Protein backbone atom coordinates (compact mmCIF):
# COMPACT_ATOMS: atom_id res chain seq x y z
CA UNK A 1 0.00 0.00 0.00
CA UNK A 2 1.34 3.46 -0.75
CA UNK A 3 2.69 5.10 2.35
CA UNK A 4 0.55 7.57 4.20
CA UNK A 5 3.10 10.26 3.47
CA UNK A 6 2.29 10.04 -0.19
CA UNK A 7 -0.54 12.14 -1.39
CA UNK A 8 -2.77 9.81 -3.28
CA UNK A 9 -6.04 10.42 -5.00
CA UNK A 10 -8.36 7.68 -6.11
CA UNK A 11 -11.46 8.30 -8.10
CA UNK A 12 -14.05 5.88 -9.34
CA UNK A 13 -16.45 8.23 -11.00
CA UNK A 14 -17.89 5.66 -13.35
CA UNK A 15 -17.29 2.25 -14.85
CA UNK A 16 -15.67 3.93 -17.81
CA UNK A 17 -13.44 6.37 -16.01
CA UNK A 18 -10.84 4.99 -13.61
CA UNK A 19 -7.79 6.91 -12.44
CA UNK A 20 -5.39 6.54 -9.52
CA UNK A 21 -2.73 9.19 -9.05
CA UNK A 22 0.28 8.97 -6.77
CA UNK A 23 2.30 12.10 -6.03
CA UNK A 24 5.89 12.59 -4.93
CA UNK A 25 6.71 13.27 -1.33
CA UNK A 26 7.66 16.79 -0.22
CA UNK A 27 9.10 19.00 -1.54
CA UNK A 28 7.71 17.69 -4.85
CA UNK A 29 4.28 16.86 -3.53
CA UNK A 30 2.63 18.79 -6.34
CA UNK A 31 4.22 16.57 -8.98
CA UNK A 32 2.52 13.41 -10.13
CA UNK A 33 4.72 10.34 -9.68
CA UNK A 34 2.48 7.72 -11.29
CA UNK A 35 -0.90 7.82 -12.94
CA UNK A 36 -2.78 4.57 -13.28
CA UNK A 37 -5.85 4.65 -15.48
CA UNK A 38 -8.24 2.47 -17.38
CA UNK A 39 -10.96 2.95 -19.93
CA UNK A 40 -13.29 0.71 -18.00
CA UNK A 41 -13.26 -0.67 -14.50
CA UNK A 42 -15.43 -3.11 -12.58
CA UNK A 43 -15.23 -3.75 -8.84
CA UNK A 44 -14.38 -7.28 -7.80
CA UNK A 45 -14.45 -8.84 -4.36
CA UNK A 46 -11.72 -8.02 -1.87
CA UNK A 47 -11.23 -4.44 -3.02
CA UNK A 48 -10.02 -5.49 -6.43
CA UNK A 49 -10.80 -3.78 -9.68
CA UNK A 50 -10.79 -5.32 -13.10
CA UNK A 51 -9.44 -2.68 -15.42
CA UNK A 52 -9.78 -2.68 -19.17
CA UNK A 53 -7.28 -0.84 -21.32
CA UNK A 54 -4.92 -0.42 -18.42
CA UNK A 55 -2.40 2.42 -18.63
CA UNK A 56 0.29 3.33 -16.16
CA UNK A 57 2.43 6.42 -16.59
CA UNK A 58 5.38 7.43 -14.42
CA UNK A 59 6.82 10.92 -14.35
CA UNK A 60 10.05 12.55 -13.20
CA UNK A 61 9.91 15.27 -10.61
CA UNK A 62 9.99 17.85 -13.39
CA UNK A 63 6.88 16.34 -14.95
CA UNK A 64 8.68 14.65 -17.81
CA UNK A 65 7.08 11.30 -18.71
CA UNK A 66 9.48 8.45 -18.00
CA UNK A 67 7.61 5.23 -18.64
CA UNK A 68 4.25 4.37 -20.15
CA UNK A 69 2.89 0.87 -19.56
CA UNK A 70 -0.23 -0.38 -21.31
CA UNK A 71 -2.13 -3.65 -21.19
CA UNK A 72 -5.51 -4.74 -22.54
CA UNK A 73 -6.60 -5.87 -19.10
CA UNK A 74 -5.42 -6.20 -15.52
CA UNK A 75 -6.62 -6.58 -11.96
CA UNK A 76 -5.80 -3.67 -9.68
CA UNK A 77 -5.55 -4.21 -5.94
CA UNK A 78 -6.27 -0.80 -4.47
CA UNK A 79 -5.48 -1.86 -0.92
CA UNK A 80 -2.02 -3.23 -1.61
CA UNK A 81 -1.21 -1.12 -4.63
CA UNK A 82 -0.74 -4.02 -7.02
CA UNK A 83 -1.68 -4.39 -10.66
CA UNK A 84 -1.32 -7.74 -12.36
CA UNK A 85 -2.39 -9.71 -15.38
CA UNK A 86 -1.46 -12.93 -17.15
CA UNK A 87 -1.95 -11.13 -20.44
CA UNK A 88 0.18 -9.07 -22.74
CA UNK A 89 1.91 -5.86 -21.71
CA UNK A 90 3.76 -3.09 -23.50
CA UNK A 91 6.17 -0.59 -22.01
CA UNK A 92 7.72 2.45 -23.61
CA UNK A 93 10.08 5.04 -22.23
CA UNK A 94 9.10 8.66 -22.33
CA UNK A 95 11.45 9.39 -25.21
CA UNK A 96 10.37 6.28 -27.09
CA UNK A 97 13.89 4.84 -27.28
CA UNK A 98 13.06 1.88 -25.08
CA UNK A 99 10.20 -0.45 -25.99
CA UNK A 100 9.38 -3.62 -24.10
CA UNK A 101 6.66 -6.20 -24.36
CA UNK A 102 5.94 -9.47 -22.63
CA UNK A 103 3.29 -11.72 -21.21
CA UNK A 104 2.17 -11.67 -17.59
CA UNK A 105 3.11 -8.85 -15.26
CA UNK A 106 2.97 -7.54 -11.73
CA UNK A 107 3.24 -3.84 -10.92
CA UNK A 108 4.06 -3.02 -7.32
CA UNK A 109 3.08 0.55 -6.62
CA UNK A 110 4.96 0.67 -3.29
CA UNK A 111 8.41 0.36 -4.81
CA UNK A 112 7.46 1.06 -8.43
CA UNK A 113 8.77 -2.28 -9.65
CA UNK A 114 7.38 -3.98 -12.73
CA UNK A 115 7.95 -7.70 -13.15
CA UNK A 116 7.30 -9.22 -16.56
CA UNK A 117 7.00 -12.97 -16.24
CA UNK A 118 7.33 -14.42 -19.72
CA UNK A 119 8.71 -13.79 -23.18
CA UNK A 120 10.26 -10.40 -22.54
CA UNK A 121 11.23 -8.60 -25.74
CA UNK A 122 13.11 -5.29 -25.54
CA UNK A 123 14.12 -2.92 -28.29
CA UNK A 124 16.61 -0.18 -27.45
CA UNK A 125 17.26 2.56 -29.97
CA UNK A 126 20.61 4.31 -30.26
CA UNK A 127 22.79 2.14 -28.11
CA UNK A 128 26.38 3.37 -27.87
CA UNK A 129 28.31 3.09 -31.10
CA UNK A 130 29.95 -0.33 -31.12
CA UNK A 131 33.56 -0.65 -32.19
CA UNK A 132 35.02 -3.65 -33.98
CA UNK A 133 35.70 -6.63 -31.79
CA UNK A 134 39.32 -7.33 -30.87
Amino acid at each position, binding site marked *: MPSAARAQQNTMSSATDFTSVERYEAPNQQQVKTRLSGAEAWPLSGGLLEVKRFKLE*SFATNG*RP*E*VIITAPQCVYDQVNGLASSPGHLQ*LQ*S*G*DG*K*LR*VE*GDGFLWRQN*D*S*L*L*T*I*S*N*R*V*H*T*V*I*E*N*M*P*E*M*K*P*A*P
Partner: protein
Amino acid sequence: MKSVYIIATAVLCGMTAPAQTNAPAPRPPTVIDSESAVFDPNGHQVTYRVHVRVNDPEMKLTCDWLVADLPQAGGRVDHIVATTNVVIDGTDAKGQAMHATCARAVYDYKEQNGATNETVWLTGNAKVENVQWTITGEPIIWDRVTGSVTASNQVMTLHQNLAGAATKTNSPPARTNVPPGSIDNIDKNLHSKNQF
Protein backbone atom coordinates in the same frame (compact mmCIF):
# COMPACT_ATOMS: atom_id res chain seq x y z
CA MET B 1 49.15 -7.60 -10.72
CA LYS B 2 51.17 -7.93 -13.83
CA SER B 3 49.41 -6.63 -16.83
CA VAL B 4 50.17 -7.46 -20.39
CA TYR B 5 49.03 -4.97 -22.95
CA ILE B 6 48.15 -6.35 -26.33
CA ILE B 7 47.59 -3.98 -29.19
CA ALA B 8 45.24 -5.46 -31.70
CA THR B 9 46.87 -3.77 -34.63
CA ALA B 10 45.59 -3.76 -38.13
CA VAL B 11 48.76 -5.32 -39.44
CA LEU B 12 48.88 -8.42 -37.28
CA CYS B 13 45.30 -8.98 -36.37
CA GLY B 14 43.72 -8.15 -39.64
CA MET B 15 41.77 -5.27 -38.20
CA THR B 16 41.46 -1.77 -39.46
CA ALA B 17 40.53 1.15 -37.28
CA PRO B 18 37.05 2.45 -37.96
CA ALA B 19 36.81 5.81 -39.59
CA GLN B 20 36.34 8.54 -37.00
CA THR B 21 33.51 10.87 -37.76
CA ASN B 22 31.72 13.47 -35.73
CA ALA B 23 28.31 12.26 -36.83
CA PRO B 24 28.09 8.48 -36.62
CA ALA B 25 25.46 6.87 -38.76
CA PRO B 26 22.29 5.77 -37.02
CA ARG B 27 22.53 2.22 -35.82
CA PRO B 28 19.85 -0.42 -35.95
CA PRO B 29 18.29 -1.04 -32.56
CA THR B 30 19.58 -3.48 -30.01
CA VAL B 31 17.16 -6.24 -29.09
CA ILE B 32 17.14 -8.06 -25.76
CA ASP B 33 15.04 -11.14 -25.15
CA SER B 34 14.68 -13.07 -21.92
CA GLU B 35 12.29 -15.29 -20.04
CA SER B 36 11.51 -12.63 -17.44
CA ALA B 37 12.54 -9.16 -16.36
CA VAL B 38 12.15 -6.66 -13.55
CA PHE B 39 11.96 -2.97 -14.39
CA ASP B 40 12.72 -0.24 -11.92
CA PRO B 41 11.68 2.97 -13.66
CA ASN B 42 12.62 5.14 -10.69
CA GLY B 43 16.01 3.52 -10.35
CA HIS B 44 16.41 3.54 -14.13
CA GLN B 45 17.42 -0.10 -14.12
CA VAL B 46 16.19 -3.33 -15.65
CA THR B 47 17.17 -6.86 -14.70
CA TYR B 48 16.76 -9.62 -17.28
CA ARG B 49 16.64 -13.21 -16.08
CA VAL B 50 16.98 -16.64 -17.68
CA HIS B 51 18.08 -17.23 -21.27
CA VAL B 52 19.02 -13.63 -21.87
CA ARG B 53 19.85 -12.95 -25.50
CA VAL B 54 21.23 -9.64 -26.73
CA ASN B 55 21.18 -9.08 -30.46
CA ASP B 56 23.21 -6.02 -31.33
CA PRO B 57 24.15 -5.06 -34.89
CA GLU B 58 27.77 -5.83 -34.14
CA MET B 59 27.64 -8.53 -31.53
CA LYS B 60 25.50 -11.15 -29.92
CA LEU B 61 25.55 -11.89 -26.21
CA THR B 62 23.88 -14.60 -24.19
CA CYS B 63 23.86 -15.04 -20.43
CA ASP B 64 21.53 -15.98 -17.61
CA TRP B 65 21.37 -12.63 -15.83
CA LEU B 66 21.78 -9.13 -17.20
CA VAL B 67 21.35 -5.78 -15.45
CA ALA B 68 21.26 -2.62 -17.55
CA ASP B 69 21.06 0.97 -16.39
CA LEU B 70 18.35 2.63 -18.39
CA PRO B 71 19.33 5.88 -20.05
CA GLN B 72 17.87 9.16 -18.97
CA ALA B 73 15.89 10.99 -21.63
CA GLY B 74 18.16 11.59 -24.58
CA GLY B 75 20.94 9.58 -22.99
CA ARG B 76 22.38 6.20 -23.71
CA VAL B 77 22.87 2.92 -21.91
CA ASP B 78 26.10 3.43 -20.01
CA HIS B 79 26.37 0.44 -17.69
CA ILE B 80 25.55 -3.21 -18.30
CA VAL B 81 26.45 -6.21 -16.18
CA ALA B 82 26.02 -9.68 -17.65
CA THR B 83 26.63 -12.69 -15.43
CA THR B 84 26.56 -16.46 -15.56
CA ASN B 85 27.49 -18.33 -18.71
CA VAL B 86 28.31 -15.19 -20.64
CA VAL B 87 29.02 -15.78 -24.32
CA ILE B 88 29.83 -12.94 -26.71
CA ASP B 89 30.08 -13.35 -30.47
CA GLY B 90 30.99 -10.57 -32.80
CA THR B 91 32.96 -9.62 -35.85
CA ASP B 92 35.77 -7.19 -36.40
CA ALA B 93 36.08 -4.60 -39.15
CA LYS B 94 37.06 -7.31 -41.62
CA GLY B 95 34.16 -9.49 -40.72
CA GLN B 96 36.45 -11.82 -38.82
CA ALA B 97 34.57 -13.67 -36.12
CA MET B 98 35.51 -13.32 -32.47
CA HIS B 99 34.22 -15.31 -29.56
CA ALA B 100 34.42 -14.53 -25.85
CA THR B 101 33.30 -16.44 -22.80
CA CYS B 102 33.38 -15.52 -19.13
CA ALA B 103 31.35 -15.62 -15.95
CA ARG B 104 30.87 -11.86 -15.80
CA ALA B 105 31.06 -9.06 -18.35
CA VAL B 106 30.75 -5.41 -17.41
CA TYR B 107 30.19 -2.74 -20.05
CA ASP B 108 30.81 0.90 -19.17
CA TYR B 109 30.46 4.02 -21.25
CA LYS B 110 31.55 7.42 -20.04
CA GLU B 111 32.24 10.78 -21.58
CA GLN B 112 34.48 13.16 -19.68
CA ASN B 113 36.03 16.38 -20.91
CA GLY B 114 35.30 15.44 -24.49
CA ALA B 115 36.95 12.04 -24.17
CA THR B 116 35.00 8.81 -24.54
CA ASN B 117 35.74 5.77 -22.43
CA GLU B 118 34.00 2.60 -23.49
CA THR B 119 35.17 -0.69 -22.05
CA VAL B 120 34.08 -4.25 -21.47
CA TRP B 121 35.64 -6.10 -18.53
CA LEU B 122 35.55 -9.88 -18.74
CA THR B 123 36.20 -11.89 -15.58
CA GLY B 124 35.65 -15.42 -14.37
CA ASN B 125 37.49 -17.87 -16.64
CA ALA B 126 37.54 -15.15 -19.26
CA LYS B 127 38.61 -16.08 -22.76
CA VAL B 128 38.66 -14.19 -26.03
CA GLU B 129 39.49 -15.89 -29.28
CA ASN B 130 39.47 -15.35 -32.98
CA VAL B 131 40.76 -17.41 -35.85
CA GLN B 132 44.33 -16.37 -35.08
CA TRP B 133 44.64 -16.50 -31.32
CA THR B 134 43.06 -17.25 -28.00
CA ILE B 135 43.64 -15.07 -24.96
CA THR B 136 42.85 -15.99 -21.39
CA GLY B 137 43.37 -13.70 -18.44
CA GLU B 138 41.85 -12.21 -15.35
CA PRO B 139 40.49 -9.74 -16.19
CA ILE B 140 40.43 -9.22 -19.90
CA ILE B 141 39.61 -5.60 -20.72
CA TRP B 142 38.33 -4.77 -24.17
CA ASP B 143 38.71 -1.07 -24.94
CA ARG B 144 36.04 -0.40 -27.50
CA VAL B 145 37.39 3.03 -28.37
CA THR B 146 40.87 1.88 -29.37
CA GLY B 147 39.98 -1.71 -30.19
CA SER B 148 42.73 -2.96 -27.91
CA VAL B 149 42.61 -5.80 -25.43
CA THR B 150 44.37 -5.70 -22.08
CA ALA B 151 44.73 -8.86 -20.09
CA SER B 152 46.20 -9.49 -16.69
CA ASN B 153 47.95 -12.80 -16.06
CA GLN B 154 47.47 -13.29 -19.74
CA VAL B 155 48.12 -16.42 -21.73
CA MET B 156 47.94 -16.37 -25.50
CA THR B 157 47.55 -19.36 -27.76
CA LEU B 158 48.34 -18.79 -31.41
CA HIS B 159 46.28 -20.62 -33.94
CA GLN B 160 48.33 -19.85 -37.03
CA ASN B 161 51.47 -18.24 -38.31
CA LEU B 162 51.04 -14.52 -37.81
CA ALA B 163 53.99 -13.82 -40.10
CA GLY B 164 51.65 -14.39 -42.98
CA ALA B 165 52.88 -17.69 -44.35
CA ALA B 166 50.44 -19.04 -46.85
CA THR B 167 51.01 -22.62 -45.87
CA LYS B 168 48.25 -24.35 -44.06
CA THR B 169 49.21 -27.11 -41.70
CA ASN B 170 47.59 -29.14 -39.01
CA SER B 171 50.40 -28.48 -36.57
CA PRO B 172 49.28 -27.86 -32.98
CA PRO B 173 48.93 -24.23 -31.92
CA ALA B 174 51.89 -22.62 -30.24
CA ARG B 175 51.30 -21.83 -26.60
CA THR B 176 53.31 -19.12 -24.94
CA ASN B 177 53.28 -16.57 -22.20
CA VAL B 178 53.65 -13.35 -24.07
CA PRO B 179 55.89 -10.82 -22.31
CA PRO B 180 54.61 -7.33 -21.65
CA GLY B 181 54.44 -5.37 -24.83
CA SER B 182 52.83 -5.27 -28.18
CA ILE B 183 52.08 -8.30 -30.25
CA ASP B 184 53.56 -6.33 -33.12
CA ASN B 185 56.66 -8.44 -32.50
CA ILE B 186 54.97 -11.61 -31.49
CA ASP B 187 56.64 -13.56 -34.25
CA LYS B 188 60.06 -12.37 -33.10
CA ASN B 189 59.20 -13.21 -29.51
CA LEU B 190 58.26 -16.66 -30.55
CA HIS B 191 61.47 -17.19 -32.47
CA SER B 192 63.66 -15.85 -29.71
CA LYS B 193 62.00 -17.37 -26.68
CA ASN B 194 60.11 -20.38 -27.85
CA GLN B 195 61.98 -22.61 -30.20
CA PHE B 196 59.51 -25.30 -31.11
